[in-house]
């Protein structure tokens, strides 16, 4: 899986931007004080929400 959060971009030149990879995998939800995977069954029927 591509994950630019843990592999900062090669062309990044911002001297102040020193990203640290988040300690938690972004593919998780935070519910009731715990990080958990989404359950199956969803679809990606998005509409534009700015």
């Amino acid at each position, binding site marked *: 899986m591509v994950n630019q959060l843990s592999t900062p971009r090669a*062309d*990044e030149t*911002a001297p102040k931007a020193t990203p640290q990879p988040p*300690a938690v995998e*972004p593919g998780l939800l*935070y519910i009731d004080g715990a990080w958990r995977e989404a*359950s199956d*069954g969803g679809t*990606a029927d998005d509409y534009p*929400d700015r």
Partner: protein
Amino acid sequence: MAGPPTITPIDESEITTVAQATESDVESAVAAARIAFDEGPWPGLNVHARAKVLRRIAELVEQNLDELAYLETLDMGKPIAMSRAIDAPMTAQIFHYYAGMATQLEGSTRGGSSPTTHPFPVAGLNYTEREPLGVVAAITPFNFPLLLSATKIAPALAAGNCVIHKPASLTPLSAIRIAQIMEEAGLPNGVFNLITGPGGRVGNQLVEHPAINKIAFTGSTAVGKGIIARSAETLKKTTMELGGKSANIIFADADLDTALEHAWFSIFYNKGEICTAGSRMLLERSIHDEFVERFAARASTTIPGNPLDPTTTFGPLADANQFKKVSEYVQYGLEDGARLRLGGKPFHPDSLNGKGYYYLPTIFTEATNQMRIARDEIFGPVLTVIPFDTEDEAIRLANDTDYGLASGIHTLNLKRAHRVARALRAGTVWVNTYNMFDATTPFGGYKSSGFGREGGPEVMENYTQYKSVWIDLS
């Protein structure tokens, strides 16, 4: 389930994959927040203890400014110089400010506490208490993911509510990092919950859910109307921070050098992806040609570039849909007879091999207030210049819009500044400046730009309710 990858607008490459919450996940989040509110310690917590947690959140944001700014820029393309100087530190300020507000919620006693209309003779005492609403769903937009989350989450928590945050599916990364910070700050379980996923499913489920008490939304007017309609069945309280088509009025008696710079900032800040964008420049006819000439020259030096470069002032549009919309409106401007004075086309930075959603700053002149580029919120770097002859005409043109979010006035005439500010039907008016914001100041719209306020003490009205208590003392 894992959803489609999030894409950076910088070069259209994949960033990562974010969870797509399902119906069952939303139910879990709502149940957790409901239990945390109904049975947990947070709503009744000593206000100093609640303030302390909010201050801790602010401190953790401050300790992670660089990372938060990076995530924001990577996700939506705003220049890192701005996300580092504005978005990330202002997010911390907002949590600091509402930490203080947690201790400032006051009730009152009322003069009518011995009513003469009661059938029994009573000596009464009446007082009011301010209580939290319950469970708040914060549905936040892609253009200021951090800031416009903080403006909802911080006051909601300060008042003792529990929160479910649903960030825009386009820009979830900083929201995930904020959730980590919430956890680290020591919020009790269930007080804050983050669910990511498509608005069409996750958002609607939240809006319709009977166990949620309030929806705080920032986004387009069209989506806001849909939320209001869907939430009506369960009589939810809502606050709506919606779209705009703001007029930036420049009088001939203005300091034109200053007006020029603020006009740039009004429309090209955040690539025009800001609800307050001064997308209609109303320009006094006597200075029209000269000012347009100077402004176009100034804007022509704004070259879109990689927003991770700290010297970049203008990045890519947030995604392909934004790019398409801006392109379409440029075509509408041409079809409607306006003159394209600058830009009006994509731009490809040399280092990115034609990738990314870059679009040149665009200026239309010889336009009327009835054209689509003057009526509709484009949400991009497209300026429509409209001339006027008198102060009254400027006011009429400025108010001739469905929206009423913000407006700018540039004049050195003090009386005129106050007079026009009072006449404008907009929630915010800037005089000889533009796009000034602060956590202490209320912000929100008139007309189709929404209702409710974010910022300042006024926002607490949107996250609390009054309870009136009567006691018979006789």
